[in-house]
Structure formats: structure tokens, C-alpha cells
């Protein structure tokens, strides 16, 4: 038996979330006396994927070919199915991100295998198979039982962490029988900036709300983010009003993120906002209103005007970082 983890190929690179998934897969394998394997599609150096050996992955199945650099969900799912059948896989693991959300449900139908998305910890039991997932946009958890022999899971990012377990790893090349030819979909254009840190990957996020009082006041927030090596985010009205770009909108209807540290600057903490950030490990809030709901979910709070606090906070972090 084996556990298969789908390793997303980020333009030839791996990210921390891949290693977290590998860690989770290898724990699942350990608990079920099986082998942790990984599947990678598209162009990527072996040196890069060999790093997965630090996290318990014993075998990588590599499907090469430039056509696999663009995700065509229907085709990718068929390739994953082939590998699942060949490798005698009983659990398949995806990231709970755009890619996982696109592929895992399709695979669930192909294999008639129960799929649970957004799982936050290891299974509570294996027989019956019971696992906990996020529900009601972070306001609750659901315990779900999977009734089928093969199980598919997607892991909420930054919920398990990295667990090192160095092993020897082999890479095997897989020739797929699947073709792109008869799928009536094609990519016509691509606009990707490779160097941008995605909000999903950032360990620290500094986020501004309407309490920032206007787009012209964002410089101090950006300075703080720079000192911390953080990504910047915002509340929904801030992006709706065009103060900041839509990619920065976090919350129930924007991005759902789980950084180690989230700093909410002039954000009231509406439930729809909190739904997008409640899995952050630590939340700091800066607000002039001591009754702002954000203080109910924050670990640390500062009562005060953002324009006065931000520069002082930046100085304090600079001093800490030693320059």
C-alpha cells in the first residue's frame, strides 16, 4: 500500500507547502505501514525534487513533458488516476489551494473515492477513517468519515508544519497513456510574474483596513512589511474602493490565509474578514477602538492611531533585527 502526495510544480521550483504536504503524507504512511510517494508533473530539475527526501518521501514518480506545465484539469486527473492504480495507492493527498480544489474532486469521481477538503490534522482513526476538516469558514470543524477504500484529502496550508525525516529516495519516470489531443480547451495567454511572493506563502502578513484612511497612507504599512519580509493584504472595502489591488483582499470572499503572524492595521474584525485569517498562528491588531471585534480574536492588541503606531513599530522591529 502507499500514500501518494501530489507535488505542485511551481515553475520548476518547490515551495514550503510542498514540504509540509510531504511531511503529512509520510506521517500518514507511517501510521498505516505504507510507503510515502510523490507525483510531480512538468518541467523540474531532479535536484529540486530530491529535496523531498528530507520529509520522508521514498519514491517520486515524475511525468515529464512541457505540455504538463499548464494545468488542464481533465488530463491531469487522468494521469493521477493512472499512477494511483499502478502504485497501489490507498490515500491521495493534495494541497487545499486552487490546484487541489481543481483536481481532487475530479479524481474523487474517477476513483469513486471519498474526498475531504481542508483537513487540519492527522486522522482521528484509520478504521473507520475519520478526519477533521474546517467548516463554516473557520467558525467550526467537522468530523468526516470516509466510506470508500481509497481516500482523498486536501490539507489546509500551514496547519501541520514541517516534520523532517530523511530517507533514501528514488525517482521513477512514468510514461502516461493520456493525451491532450481530444480535450477541447487550450491556454491562449499567460501573465505570470515569477518573483512575486504570494499571500498564501508568506509567513508574515501585514494587512490594512479602512482605518488607514486612504491609499496615500500605505507607505508606513509597506515599510513595516519590508522590515518583516512580509506580504501585504487588505480588507474587502479597501480593495473594493480601489485603494489596494484585488489580489490583496483577504477574508471569506477573498483569500483565505494562515500565516504565522497576521498584523491587522485599522481593521474592525468583521466576521467575514476574520473567516479568512482565523487560522493565523498569531494575530496582532492595531485599532483606536477598544471595542473593535478584532480584539476578540487577536493575541496581542495595541490601542492607538495607525499613523502614529506604524512608524514606531517598524523602528522596534528594525532594532530587533539588529540594524
Amino acid at each position: 500500500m502507499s500514500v501518494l502526495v501530489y507535488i505542485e510544480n511551481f515553475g520548476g521550483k518547490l515551495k514550503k507547502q510542498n514540504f509540509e504536504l510531504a511531511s503529512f503524507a509520510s506521517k500518514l504512511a507511517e501510521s498505516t505501514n505504507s510507503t510515502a510517494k510523490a507525483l510531480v508533473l512538468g518541467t523540474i530539475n531532479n535536484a529540486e525534487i530530491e529535496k523531498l527526501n528530507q520529509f520522508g518521501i521514498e519514491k517520486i514518480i515524475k511525468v515529464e513533458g512541457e505540455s504538463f506545465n499548464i494545468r488542464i484539469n481533465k488530463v491531469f486527473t487522468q494521469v493521477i488516476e493512472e499512477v494511483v492504480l499502478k502504485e497501489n495507492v490507498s490515500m491521495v493527498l493534495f494541497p487545499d489551494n486552487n490546484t487541489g480544489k481543481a483536481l481532487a474532486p475530479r479524481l474523487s469521481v474517477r476513483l469513486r473515492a471519498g474526498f475531504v477538503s481542508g483537513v487540519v490534522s492527522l486522522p482521528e482513526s484509520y478504521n473507520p477513517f475519520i478526519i477533521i476538516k474546517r467548516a463554516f469558514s473557520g467558525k467550526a470543524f467537522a468530523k468526516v468519515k470516509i466510506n470508500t477504500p481509497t481516500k482523498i484529502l486536501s490539507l489546509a496550508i500551514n496547519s501541520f508544519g514541517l516534520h523532517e525525516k530523511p530517507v533514501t529516495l528514488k525517482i521513477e519516470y512514468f510514461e502516461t497513456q493520456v493525451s491532450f489531443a481530444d480535450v477541447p480547451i487550450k491556454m491562449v495567454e499567460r501573465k505570470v510574474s515569477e518573483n512575486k511572493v504570494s499571500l498564501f506563502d508568506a509567513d508574515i502578513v501585514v494587512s490594512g483596513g479602512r482605518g488607514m484612511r486612504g491609499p496615500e497612507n500605505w507607505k508606513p504599512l509597506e515599510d513595516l512589511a519590508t522590515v518583516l519580509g512580509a506580504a501585504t493584504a487588505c480588507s474587502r472595502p479597501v480593495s473594493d474602493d480601489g485603494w489596494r489591488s484585488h489580489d490583496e483582499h483577504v477574508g471569506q470572499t477573498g483569500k483565505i490565509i494562515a500565516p504565522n503572524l497576521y498584523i491587522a492595521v485599522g481593521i474592525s474584525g468583521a466576521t467575514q474578514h476574520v473567516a479568512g485569517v482565523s487560522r493565523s498562528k498569531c494575530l496582532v491588531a492595531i485599532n483606536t477602538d477598544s471595542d473593535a471585534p478584532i480584539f476578540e480574536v487577536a493575541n496581542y492588541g495595541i490601542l492607538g492611531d495607525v499613523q502614529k503606531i506604524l512608524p514606531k513599530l517598524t523602528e522596534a522591529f528594525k532594532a530587533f533585527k539588529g540594524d
Partner: protein
Amino acid sequence: MKILVCISNVPDTTTKIKFTDKQTRFDPTGVQWIINPWDELALSRSVDLKEDSSNPVSEITVINVGTSETEPTLRKCLAIGADKAIRIDSEPKDAFFTAQQIANYVQKESFEFVVFGIESGDYNGSSVGGMVAEILGVPSVSSVSDIKFNGSSATIERDVDGGKEYMQVQGTTVIVVQKGFAKEPRIPNMRGIMMARQKPLEVLAAIDSELLTEIIEFNLPEPKAKVKMIDPDNLQELVALLSKEAKVL
């Protein structure tokens, strides 16, 4: 060109979540039900597209798998501008069950686009759209933030890590939409509400389907420890706490 928008009926986003029957069921007492926010965006944009006569969109149908209690939500969809509503009369038991019902309906009618939200606000499954696509054996494009028509051909914009990709499709396609697909949800006006009363809301029986998963219990998160307030004149204290206590620096 016909569009089907799949509508999940969910508790209002400000609902205080409670459970009943030994934590096995969501407690609907006093809950306001709404169109799932992404589905509302999906519908709003579909109506915008139809209203602009340069687009080939001719008819918008909405579908929900649910009990009669979801009908006010479907009526609201009609008031926003859907032409007709379908309700498959059953509790949506799990994602695969729900997907089977929708796919079965799509197989009987013909739609160019079958549109879903990225997740439902209650079970956060992110599943039904992809499942319907696979049952139908058609392409799916997910994290879709825009769609543009040029004559009869559509270009779909999807978000990928670090940017956007633009896809062209032919035939029935499943699209799963997220933020950006519509700027704002459309608010039904008086005329829309009046017209909705006359529009068809058809109720169909559910088909049999197996359940791949079952929810056995719900839990609320542990209550958070009380916030620690930091003196604004002593921000070094915050830095020290973040580094030593929270260990996040």
C-alpha cells in the same frame, strides 16, 4: 447559449454557528439563509452578460439541491435575473450526491457553461463543481475571475500561482468562480421581485446515489485566550513577546 448557475443555500455570513442533536447537526434556529456569496457573484455576472446584447447568452437557469426551505433563495435568484429555477428535492447529503443530481440534470438539458462557486459557506467542500465536470467528462476551469465573449467564443481568465492564465473552450464547460468574477452582487429591484413570481420554479425528484463521505460530528474551536494589550509607548514589549512567547519572528 445557455448558462446554468449552481446555487448553494447557506447561513448568512454573520451567523453565530451552533449545533444540535449531540453536535451532529447544524442548528438552523433563527438563521437567515442567503445565496452562497460566490454563487451570487456567478449569477450576477451571468445576468450582466445576458443583458449586454453583444454577448451570446440567451438563458440563465439556476439549480439547487435542497428541501423546500431553499425556495426563498431560488426566488431571490429569479428576482436578480435568472430566467428559471430548478430545485432537486433532497437534502444535499454529500458533495458526490449533490454533484450526481446536478450532472443528471445537465445531461438532460444542454448548457454551454455550468457555473459554480469556489466553496459553499457551510461545509467548505470545494468539491461539487469539479465532481460535476468529471461525471460529465467535460473540461473544468477553476479559480475563474473573468469571462469575456468575442462572438460565440469565450475567453476565461483563471488565477494561477503568481498571475493569470487565459483559456479558450468548446462545448459544455464547468467553470468554478471566485472573487472578481462580478464586482458586486446584484440587488434585486422591485420589478425583478414582481417578475420572479411569474417565473418557473420546477421541482424534480432526486436520483439515487451512493454517499462517499458522512459528517459525524461538528465542533466549535476552542475559545481564544484574552487579548494581551501592549502599551503603545513600549512596542519593544510586543517584539519580545512575538519572538519569545508566540515564537513567530
